[in-house]
């Protein structure tokens, strides 16, 4: 096992898949000569050349559509969105073409494309640059939505996403890029649609994904000292959702907290709460509680931003509540 950053794990996944399949190419703003705004594509231009590592103008709608078009005829583009905030400009191509082309064409035309880049907030980037849109994409049939929390998951899931024959929304995190973790040396894939138990526990379940996984694990550690044994389930893939994994855990612990980075209304957590109350109604010993961003545009000021964000303290408090420990 080597220790890699999340950034380098993604870089390795891209490199391996580009070596493996000549139809895979990377396109986006600053991905080539600049090595990527967040350096995820470092070195790929040198290795694969300008034909397969393509710098684009600032034209999200245009290059997303070009990527989708090339995927409709069999290439396997990886389209980098410098951040997912900017993908709002491209969302018509993602939702109206990538997600629907197979269905509209009666199964004739596929769209094996990966849209990837950092989502959610970093530090003090302000309202327009700090948004988590996973629940939007997960709302759309025809898309898959993947959000790795660790370097090992990032690599294995990105490789699977690139090999998947469907459009995949792959949401990373600027705050995760420097996260270090063990990554297997040999090649491996992690299947899409399979959640991961990041920590086993018996008293309560925390369902989380992406940036809420680390705080959830910290909260679990804190609660351990308080005599609470908490299970932490990392969804890893938001759509398709691993419903069985969530239900299995809740049927064991009877208590559930859902932590997500984004806003609450019709967020991913709302869907998980709906699922659990519907499928595990009698297993629940307490209402499901959600932890999510303050329901406001993200403020610039660092104290206000901190107050707006999900953290281990807020998650731990929610777990105490579902365990009637407060």
């Amino acid at each position, binding site marked *: 096992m080597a220790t890699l950053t999340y950034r380098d794990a993604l870089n390795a996944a891209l490199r391996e898949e580009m070596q493996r399949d000549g139809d895979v*190419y990377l396109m986006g703003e600053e991905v080539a000569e600049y090595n990527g705004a967040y350096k995820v594509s470092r070195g790929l231009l040198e290795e694969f050349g300008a*034909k397969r590592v393509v710098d*684009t*103008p600032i*034209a999200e*709608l*245009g*290059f*997303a*559509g*070009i*990527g*989708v*078009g*090339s*995927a*409709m*005829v*069999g*290439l396997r583009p990886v389209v980098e969105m410098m951040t997912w905030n900017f993908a709002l400009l491209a969302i*018509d*191509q993602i939702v*109206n*073409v990538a997600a629907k*082309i*197979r*269905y*509209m*064409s*009666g*199964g*004739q*035309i*596929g769209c*094996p494309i990966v849209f990837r880049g950092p989502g959610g907030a970093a530090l003090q980037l302000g309202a327009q640059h700090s948004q988590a849109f996973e629940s939007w994409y997960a709302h759309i*049939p*025809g898309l*898959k939505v993947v959000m790795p929390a660790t370097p090992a998951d990032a690599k294995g899931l990105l490789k*699977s996403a690139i*090999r*998947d*024959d*469907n459009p995949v929304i792959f949401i990373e995190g600027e705050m995760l890029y420097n996260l270090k973790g063990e990554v297997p040396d040999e090649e491996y*894939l992690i*299947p899409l649609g399979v959640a991961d138990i990041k920590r086993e526990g018996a008293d309560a379940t925390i369902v989380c994904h992406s940036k809420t996984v680390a705080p959830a694990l910290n909260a679990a550690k804190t609660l351990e000292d308080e005599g609470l044994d908490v299970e932490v389930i990392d969804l890893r893939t938001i759509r398709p959702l691993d419903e069985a994994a969530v239900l299995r855990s809740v049927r064991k612990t009877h208590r559930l907290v859902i932590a997500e980075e984004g806003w609450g209304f019709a967020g991913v957590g709302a869907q998980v709460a709906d699922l659990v109350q519907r499928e595990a109604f009698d297993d629940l010993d307490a209402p499901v509680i959600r932890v999510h961003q303050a329901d406001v545009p993200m403020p610039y000021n660092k104290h206000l931003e901190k107050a707006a964000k999900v953290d281990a303290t807020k998650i731990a408090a929610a777990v105490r509540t579902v365990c009637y420990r407060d």
Partner: protein
Amino acid sequence: MAVSTDTAPRPTRRADADAYRDEWTDWLRMMLLIRRFEERAGEAYSIGHIGGFCHLYIGQEAVAVGTISALRDDDYVISAYREHGQALARGMTARSVMAELFGKATGCSGGKGGSMHLFDLERGFMGGHGIVGGQIPLGAGFAFAAKYRETEQLSLTYFGEAAANIGSFHEALNIAALWKLPAIFVIENNGYGMGTAVRRSAAITDLADRAASYGMPGVVVDGQDVIAVREATDEAVARARAGEGPTLMDIRTYRYVGHSMSDAPHGTYRSKDEVEEFRQRDPILVLEERMREAGLLDDAALEALEAEVTAEVADAVQFAEESPEPDADQLWTDVLAPVKEND
């Protein structure tokens, strides 16, 4: 022709008027087929056999026939929602297109696409798209793939003149020119976007001039003269094949019918007289006369062609009527790719 004279088709043919004469009969036949197909589609719509939105191509036939006849079989064609004519010109059968309009399992999209979403991957017919301008980056994407694979294929992208005011036009043309993609962008300029004349939606009415923003050639073409259309398309095709990049064609034509079946042929935005005036220079008549002059067509021959296409369309309608509805389980298929071994 008050409102739209500024974009009215005008003669642009330059080369020998006899050029392509061995293809004329095929062109005439195809234009007739499209015309009769659309007329029958309109009828079927009014009696409820076709649903949703249905945008007819009547009056614009020379654009599809003149452009597509210049292509290779492995080139890519993509259009908007007014694409029945292009689908037929690309060699899709009247049966498969009519059946799709009827929503039948035998339709080119299995009944799941409908009039606005005709597809035939085998013939490189990539739709059939309902969001104005959405197909423009996609067309550039096919050209990107062709260049990536060095296949010398090209892509032909159709859109209405009103789509030249939307962002995807600008983004796609800039990138296509910057990367010298083998693409042809065809403004199918029928003078109106729904009820809006060009000069009410575009700050300049000679949309071909917008090519200059991307350093690509822009040409105005007489869309009612199939020979002129083909001539201009050949040049664009040559550029694309030679790796010289994209061309913007502003092909001037006219829509005789309403924007869609739910829209009257004329109304507040254009007069009956205007429509009548444009009908005088009908693309089918223009070629017909040229062929008669050249002694390639007489009444008998024309009647024979008419009979052929009328029968072909009647057969298509019957086929569509008699075809089965998609199975109920089709609701759930084709959302995602069939599950395969990841490796």
